């Protein structure tokens, strides 16, 4: 067993060799190492990843009986019908999409702009990057409580700054109309560093010759940005877009802890949580989660189809 790392032979062997092939495989130390590693990992995946997904399919199509789950009656798509005729579900859909749009539109240009600044500075890049990244690593619960303080409508620091500047104050999260933009602002602030790191890495990966060639052709800064930076950043921006859409549509903690006015931050994940663990409607909750899943899946496919660059380098 000199040079190859062969765990088992895949070539269709003649039948009479099957036993000897198997015996040979079983004698290999690689087989045993691979087996000892993969067996528990795959068992874990079956138990804690695939199992729950299958159980979710089942749960969404039965009237879940909390006392005797195995006696739950199959009801087909009835849970989904209930979800779609539930007014609060549509409210949560509207809140989630609006929040997601705010964060997307706010983060992407800002993160690109900051990344361009980071690439432009030679010295201090790591320092700036780690500082801007700091809010990313901090617990969202702590951040939500912190911004409750800063956004307090009476004496919060934000309103004090606005007053000092002679601007009208805001109710922030406690106002029915200002709640979603406020919570989106917090989310942009918290997530910016993450997106900046990814885009900066993408920018630094663009070969300098591309810019030199464009320069030789007489392209000004704007043209170089538009026709060199943006297209060559295609894969990174696609990844960013997909991560951001999938992430914001699953928002939970901020809406839960920031204390928004009424149902103004009632996101789909909060509906799932509340239906499951407050109203104990497991089937309904899981069915609404599936709607979210399908929605994210469709949006991801659309993004990949429409944004995928048609070049390689």
């Amino acid at each position, binding site marked *: 067993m000199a040079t190859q790392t062969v765990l088992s032979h895949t070539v269709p062997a003649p039948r009479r060799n099957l036993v000897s092939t198997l015996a040979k495989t079983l004698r290999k130390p690689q087989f045993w190492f691979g087996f000892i590693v993969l067996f528990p990992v795959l068992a874990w995946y079956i138990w804690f990843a695939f199992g729950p997904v299958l*159980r979710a399919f089942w749960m969404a199509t039965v009237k879940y009986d909390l006392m005797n789950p195995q006696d739950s009656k199959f009801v087909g798509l009835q849970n989904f019908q209930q979800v779609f005729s539930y007014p609060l579900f549509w409210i949560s859909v509207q809140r989630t999409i609006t929040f997601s749009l705010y964060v997307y539109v706010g983060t992407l240009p800002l993160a690109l702009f900051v990344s361009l600044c980071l690439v432009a500075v030679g010295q201090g890049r790591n320092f700036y990057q780690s500082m801007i990244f700091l809010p990313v690593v901090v617990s969202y619960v702590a951040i939500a409580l912190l911004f409750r303080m800063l956004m307090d409508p009476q004496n919060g620091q934000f309103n004090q700054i606005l007053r000092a500047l002679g601007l009208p104050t805001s109710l922030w999260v406690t106002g029915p109309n200002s709640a979603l933009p406020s919570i989106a602002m917090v989310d942009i602030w918290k997530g910016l560093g993450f997106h900046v790191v990814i885009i900066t890495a993408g920018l630094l990966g663009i070969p300098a010759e591309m810019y030199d060639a464009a320069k030789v052709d007489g392209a000004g800064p704007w043209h170089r940005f538009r026709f060199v930076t943006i297209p060559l950043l295609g894969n990174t921006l696609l990844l960013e877009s997909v991560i951001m859409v999938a992430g914001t549509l699953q928002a939970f903690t901020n809406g839960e802890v920031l204390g928004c006015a009424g149902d103004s931050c009632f996101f789909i994940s909060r509906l799932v949580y509340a239906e499951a663990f407050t109203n104990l409607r497991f089937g309904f909750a899981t069915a609404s989660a599936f709607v979210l899943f399908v929605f994210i899946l469709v949006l991801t496919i659309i993004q990949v189809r429409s944004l995928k660059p048609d070049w390689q380098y």
Partner: protein
Amino acid sequence: MQKAVILPATSARPLSLGWIGRIFPHIILLFLTFTSLMPFVWMFFGSFKTYVEITAGKTFLPAHWTFDNYTQITQRVGFPQAFLNTTMVAVGVTLATLITSAAAGYVFAKYRFWGKEQVFTVLLSTMMVPFAVVLVPLYVTVANLGLADKLTGIIVTGLCSTFGIFLMRQFMESIPNDLIDAGRIDGAGEWWIFSRVVLPLAKASLSALAVFTFLGSWDSYLWPLVVLTSPENQTLPLVLAGLRNLYWSRYELYAAGSMLTVLPVMIVYMAASKYFVQGIAMTGLKG
């Protein structure tokens, strides 16, 4: 405005827009550094203010520094216990994730066996499923094992990480086969090669993964909220979030609780921010 900063992708070359182009990005980045830090500074000072002072909101620095908020929070709300719980969960999950990710990543990178790519794709596909979909079924799975309201219920669901396996596979693929084969020719066992040759090479990636996992587990909210119900079993984010029901608008207590929750995270981050940023960039590029 953007024009000023676009120019060279290579960092070493000076910008051709003169001193404005050189200063402008620094101004923007300094401003962002300020906005990133300022809320934490407010939180820090706020945690030493009295209720009257913080609700009046007139001062930036505390007029009289007081430790009352910290004593109250550690004595009346179960913060020390929550601290212990969170540490246990975060350490357990991190250790397990490092072991399973390194080993499985190595096998997926360097071994050849039937159905490898298919199995790997199926593992990766679990990342596509929103957590909300498995929230209830995963809770039922954990409850069926008798682990509801137990810290082990959180740890057991964090033993493997798809992201970790993916990250480690990416790295392990860059290890030359010759190194591994040399070990085999010398008669080394598979375990010896893995632990003495492969793991030391993977130190940087493992550190990045360790920091990711530790902080992710430390900050996690939704899953512990579902599993851990009794106060003595709760983790820091849960106890912290509970403050808003126990004490309405007591910002000085929120600030003190947040400080206790955030401080360890900041220390870990400051010590390891190099690995952290590298790790994200690594996955971002390959993803």
